[in-house]
């Protein structure tokens, strides 16, 4: 078989029914939990294909296909594991997921795709620490990544950016049990409602300019424009970066070839199996929004 990209532990074969535990508002987004009785604990950056078991679609005939959603948090549960998802309602699929009620059932396949990896895996033993950069609903996979780094003692700083109040949420995923925002988190907002007024990439730029960036690895997830800015900044500063991208996905497991992302040398990657996390060098530029947000 061809060499296996690090997507282990592998997903159980097929889709499975999971029960919705809770569904709460998180700023302008929703956070809902699923109880997964069969799947392994997912690493940060991996995603699941989700579809409500009932009422998936209406007279408009959409949604029809499952939707790709990153895992934002996970933990042990009574009889399996708990998976938390942070979702922004941008259309019929995410809209339906946002209104899931506790007790409802969801078809789930995953965990799929690769993960962010630790600094040492990405940049070798020399790598000193991590800078996490998230924008909008893209903060989701970074929440799990931050906790893992904290638990494993990987030095890290977190920069989160939001367009405005309405398009902000998920901050609670970066809070201590006591509810306080973790000290290593710094915020930016275009409307200035929280933290630095401007782009989160302003904060990253300053950080990379300052010599304290050291031999860090940058981990980013967010809108294409933000990811492209991160990619360019890191390329200039010669800092390795791992970018969690999005592209339209029908299947999530390599079957449809819909999730193509251009490779520098020509040709395409399948983001669902070769990603969703790509290293800066795997891209000439982050492709324009395939799933433009409303």
């Amino acid at each position, binding site marked *: 078989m*061809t060499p296996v990209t690090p997507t282990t532990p*592998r997903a159980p074969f097929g*889709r499975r029914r999971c029960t919705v535990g809770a569904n709460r508002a998180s700023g302008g987004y929703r956070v809902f939990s699923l109880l997964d009785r069969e799947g392994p604990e997912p690493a940060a950056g991996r995603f699941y294909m989700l*579809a409500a078991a009932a009422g998936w679609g209406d007279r408009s005939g959409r949604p029809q296909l499952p939707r790709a959603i990153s895992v934002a948090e996970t933990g042990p549960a009574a009889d399996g594991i708990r998976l938390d998802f942070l979702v922004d309602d941008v259309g019929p699929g995410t809209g339906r997921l946002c209104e899931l009620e506790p007790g409802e059932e969801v078809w789930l396949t995953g965990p799929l795709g690769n993960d962010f990896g630790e600094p040492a895996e990405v940049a070798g033993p020399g790598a000193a620490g991590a800078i996490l950069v998230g924008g909008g609903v893209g903060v989701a996979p970074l929440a799990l990544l931050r906790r893992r780094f904290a638990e494993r003692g990987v030095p890290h700083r977190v920069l989160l950016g939001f367009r405005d109040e309405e398009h902000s949420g998920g901050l609670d995923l970066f809070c201590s049990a006591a509810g306080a925002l973790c000290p290593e988190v710094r915020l930016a907002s275009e409307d200035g409602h929280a933290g630095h007024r401007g782009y989160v990439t302003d904060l990253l730029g300053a950080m990379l300019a300052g010599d304290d960036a050291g031999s860090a690895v940058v981990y980013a997830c967010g809108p294409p424009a933000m990811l492209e800015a991160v990619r360019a900044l890191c390329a200039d500063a010669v800092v390795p970066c791992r970018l969690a991208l999005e592209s*339209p996905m029908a299947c999530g*497991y390599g079957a449809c070839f819909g999730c193509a992302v*251009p490779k520098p040398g020509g*040709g*395409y990657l399948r983001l669902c199996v070769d990603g969703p996390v790509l290293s800066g060098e795997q891209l000439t530029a982050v492709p324009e929004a395939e799933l433009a947000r409303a």
Partner: protein
Amino acid sequence: MLEGPQLCGIELAHPVLNGSGTYDAIAARRVFGDEILDDFPFAAFVSKTITPQPRTGNEPRRIWETPAGMLNSIGLPNKGLEGFLAEDLPQLAELPVPLIVSAMATTHEDFGRIVSALDAREEVAALELNVSCPNVHSGLIVGEDPRETLALLQALRPLTAKPLIVKLTPNVADPAAVAVAAEEGGADAVSLINTLKGSAIEPRSGEPALAAGHGGLSGPAVRPVALAQLRSVRAAIGLPIVGMGGIACGADAEEFLRAGATVVAVGTESFSDPKAGSRVARELGYGSERVAAAPVH
């Protein structure tokens, strides 16, 4: 538990295949592991369509959801004949089911090269000819023209004793006429339907949603068209027929079998359910006691 059917002499455990290009067994094995070998969803595996030379496929955006279906303009990415033989075929040969290789070319010569090369490989149980492509010489889409289809079959038939399955295009006024030509040309079976030509406009830009401008429509939305073409083709030829187009559950598959399909294939539904093939077979009564074949949505 029912006994499996035969397709052109190939013994099958149940009547559910995959639609070409809708299941990458190699990628699925990477993702789900060897579990897929123990519980492979399809009674035979149909490869993605391969072409003489490697293709990278179309520029994104390649897929777009539509009412009860989807559009795709994937553009047949594949490693080309040589790459397929060297890299993919050995892996596909590890699958626990017969292998049907789908192929396409734009000249009789190129098509012949592929057929001869596959004829030489005993891992290959049968060939599916994707004729939804132009003949560069005539400029006509082979599968849209009975004469072109007949000529292609007459050129390829002598090159192999393996079963030749002709995949019909639905974008014609009279698919039965093309099926008759395939039968005359010595095809062993036909499969239908391929995707319907379709398009969509991205609401914000007002531009076509797919970079290619249009694509192929599949999924439940096309099922009635598939069933109508299946019935007219069934009435016109005696060959076995692989019926597909929007099958999502056993009840859907039953419609195709009642309308004259020898076996069926599942495509788009596998995107939502990686084991859709096994589920459809089970709902048809294979591999377990027959269950109410209601859509499991």
